[in-house]
């Protein structure tokens, strides 16, 4: 990303995750996508009970296990070892996706390649001609969760906007995203389009707009 326009401090990945975590109330059922979204769990204190779901039939995940306490049969959808909180439960894949597709999850947080200001999300393939794209559970989550948030860098490594007026990559779901947390801002997706609710310290609205393809609005 070009840093010519201003002297500001982008949020780190941990800060992005922390900000999203702060917005999750107790009692929500939440699925965290592979990658940065997974970090969110680290910033939800255990005494604020948020129930984390994983596609592979795990409900009520706790933090990663200590190395000597790994349960070999206890992994999440990212194939990482996890722990189970008191109150957790296991189910099979059809039941697990019934939770997702039946609108029982309060929230899903995914990474994305692009988000459009009508809520479209593209996060599974970077070309119409991708030879063997891997969709996993992303389409189920995007179409099924009550709310979809995206956690991603504001632009690509070479400075291309990821918040766009129209996705150029193949869609994961149309009109699904409700909020985006980036390293530069928090942005709600509303009937008006993208509405900026907070920005990285030192960043101006114009700076943010310059890094964004779609038109931004102030809250």
């Amino acid at each position, binding site marked *: 990303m070009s840093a010519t326009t201003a002297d500001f401090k982008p949020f780190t990945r941990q800060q992005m995750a922390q900000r999203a975590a702060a917005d999750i109330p107790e009692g929500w059922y939440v699925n965290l996508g592979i990658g940065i979204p997974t970090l969110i769990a680290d910033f939800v204190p255990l005494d604020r009970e948020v129930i984390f779901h994983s596609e592979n039939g795990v409900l009520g995940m706790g933090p990663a296990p200590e190395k000597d306490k790994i349960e070999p049969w206890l992994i999440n959808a990212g194939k990482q070892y996890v722990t189970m909180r008191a*109150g957790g*439960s296991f189910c099979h894949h059809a039941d697990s996706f019934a939770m997702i597709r039946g609108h029982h999850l309060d929230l899903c947080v995914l990474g994305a390649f692009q988000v459009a200001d009508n809520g479209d999300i593209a996060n599974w393939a970077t070309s119409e001609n991708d030879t063997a794209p891997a969709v996993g559970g992303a389409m189920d989550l995007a179409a*099924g969760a009550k709310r979809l948030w995206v956690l991603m860098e504001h632009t690509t490594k070479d400075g291309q906007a990821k918040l766009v007026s129209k996705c150029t990559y193949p869609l994961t779901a149309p009109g699904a995203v409700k909020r985006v947390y980036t390293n530069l801002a928090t942005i709600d997706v509303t009937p008006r389009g993208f509405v900026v609710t907070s920005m990285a310290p030192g960043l101006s609205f114009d700076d943010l707009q310059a890094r964004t393809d779609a038109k931004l609005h102030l809250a």
Partner: protein
Amino acid sequence: MINKIVQTMAEAMEGIKDGSIVLLGGFGAVGQPNALIDGLIEQGAKNLTVACNNAGTGRIGLARLMDLGRVSKIICSFPRSSDPVVFETLYREGKIELEIVPQGTLAERMRAAGAGVPAFFTATGVGTKMAVGKEHREIDGRTYILEKALKGDVALVEAWEADRWGNLTYKQAGRNFNPVMAMAADCTIVQTQHVRELGELNPDHVVTPGIFVDRVLHVPYGDPSGF
């Protein structure tokens, strides 16, 4: 701290609106949420659509709710349960609407609602009165009809054990429609014989995970054969 366990029947029944679709668990007297049905009678919501396998027995429970004129429609597979006197009188007098649904289609329609499936094809009922007016389609050489999901505003469920997250187990044939209805309603209210500490239920043995449950009331009523 998440705590779905409510202390009073009034809390359990709070907000049930007139005109609601209410899913009632149980098969025969087993796994039937009798206390919650009495609570609903007390609560007062009317013009209800009730989905249940039967249409009430004698003059208590669901039959009493109907007798009080609070049920405008019943969706069930078997209105001829033992002693269905209240239902039959109301039905003869045109005071209650009846939708007969094959038992498996009834279960599958609710499971579909819980799983985000708005409609599905089934062979059950093809070539019968049940298929009249329904979309028919031949798939791989057999004819099927299209059935729609049946979603509840409220489900009343009986469980054997529950914890404060709403995880449930059932006892033997007391499971029946209960887990299916629990996942099919916007607000699932449970009466449970036993309350367990969080973590006491084995995660491999939970049948209804708490994600499908909103409120739990402890009703240690004992043996269903008394009903």
